[in-house]
């Protein structure tokens, strides 16, 4: 019973082929098989949004998807957002706007914000709040998160903060925990 299934998934631009048990959740696959621990598990009950990733460009909660369902699809995690060691505009905005305190919800917040801005590049504040209703933050009161997303929508240029992104964090193979 429950034999393994072979899947091929493109994660953050790299193609992976693995045998997985059907009950393996996508978030477990990302974290435990690929070592992409940037995607975190918060509530594990589809409420908090901390595990949000993009599946073929649209946000999904990776705790509420089996890895086998991602077979043949593209997944982008928070670890795929920075390009060439430079933070993505949303990441830079969260940093500059102080849009986090403990930081646990931040990967999911940024992934959902990116999905929101893709669908609605110029949201109102209300649309940002509604767009983030599936992401819970227990520290900030959301004010600076909304401000950060709005600033990116408004085209605010922050420049490069100089924060570097570790190579090991953007390369799933070297970080892999097999």
């Amino acid at each position, binding site marked *: 019973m429950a034999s393994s299934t072979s899947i091929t998934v493109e994660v953050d631009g790299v193609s992976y082929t693995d045998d997985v048990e059907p009950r393996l959740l996508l978030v477990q696959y990302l974290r435990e098989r690929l070592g992409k621990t940037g995607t975190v598990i918060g509530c*594990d009950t*589809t409420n908090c949004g901390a595990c949000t990733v993009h599946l073929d460009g649209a946000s999904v909660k990776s705790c509420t998807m*089996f890895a086998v369902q991602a077979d043949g699809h593209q997944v982008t995690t928070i670890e795929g957002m920075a390009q060439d060691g430079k933070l993505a505009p949303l990441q830079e905005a969260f940093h500059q706007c102080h849009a986090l305190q403990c930081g646990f919800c931040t990967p999911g917040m940024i992934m959902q914000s990116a999905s929101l801005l893709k669908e609605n590049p110029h949201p109102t504040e209300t649309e940002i709040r509604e767009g983030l209703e599936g992401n819970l933050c227990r520290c900030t009161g959301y004010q600076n998160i909304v401000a950060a997303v709005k600033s990116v929508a408004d085209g605010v240029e922050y420049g490069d903060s100089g924060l570097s992104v570790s190579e090991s964090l953007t390369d799933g193979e070297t970080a892999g925990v097999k």
Partner: protein
Amino acid sequence: MIPSQFDYAAPTTVEEALGLLAGAESAGDDVKLLAGGQSLIPVMKLRMADPSLVVDLGRIPGLSGITDDGASLTIGAMTPHHVVATDPLVAAHVPLLAQAAATVADPQVRHRGTFGGALVHADPAGDMPAPALAVEAVFNLAGPNGNRSVAAADFFQGYFTTAVEEGEILTSITVPKYTGWGSHYGKFTRVAQQWSIVAVAAMVRVEGGVIAEARVGLTNMASTPLRATSTEAALAGCALDATAIAAACAHAAEGTEPASDLNGDADYRRHLVTVVAKRAVMAAAGL
């Protein structure tokens, strides 16, 4: 949380899926169909559902998408809520469904969760059944003995129970196009992404300065979605003013059997439904 072990099959045709269901039934396996998984996977993680076989419908082409049939639209069962909420055909011809779909859970869940999956799941607090009842949707099922269609009035049979028999699959939903109707889905919740405590799917056709015809579907007022038939009757010929509409909507709780839970007891819901119905009918009538 990790679900129990299960066997997994990902058929690529409806016929193959029906064969898997028939085989599982004769083998005595507990089989579950996986659509978007936004209800099934959480209950599997809680081990409230413990299927031995999961048949994933996500690899079957043709179960997703919206087609224009002339007088009606056909919505594939695997069409995600996000698509129902944003599709121009739905917005133009059955905006009630688009508006209700946009209130389901949160954006991430709407990207994965499906229209057909939510209807077959038939959660009394789910947002799609009452609008489907109000628009008089027709449910198209494939089964071992061929295809059949079930009217919305006959589809929802009880708590998480529909007319879909073992061995059958909901493949699509046909919805008549509406011209000259206004609609509104009024949903009452206390916090973001919550289930409806009570919600009302209202449709009205205004003619000659009065409401000529109305449909009122209720969410979470019984084990199934209901039509508020007394309110619908009272709204026929009703003047377009708040007092008259409130009087008609005072009947909205008639024939309902709401549950009591942490969000409110049954009496609270019986009162709330009259308030939400009035607001929804007013909005549907453009008032």
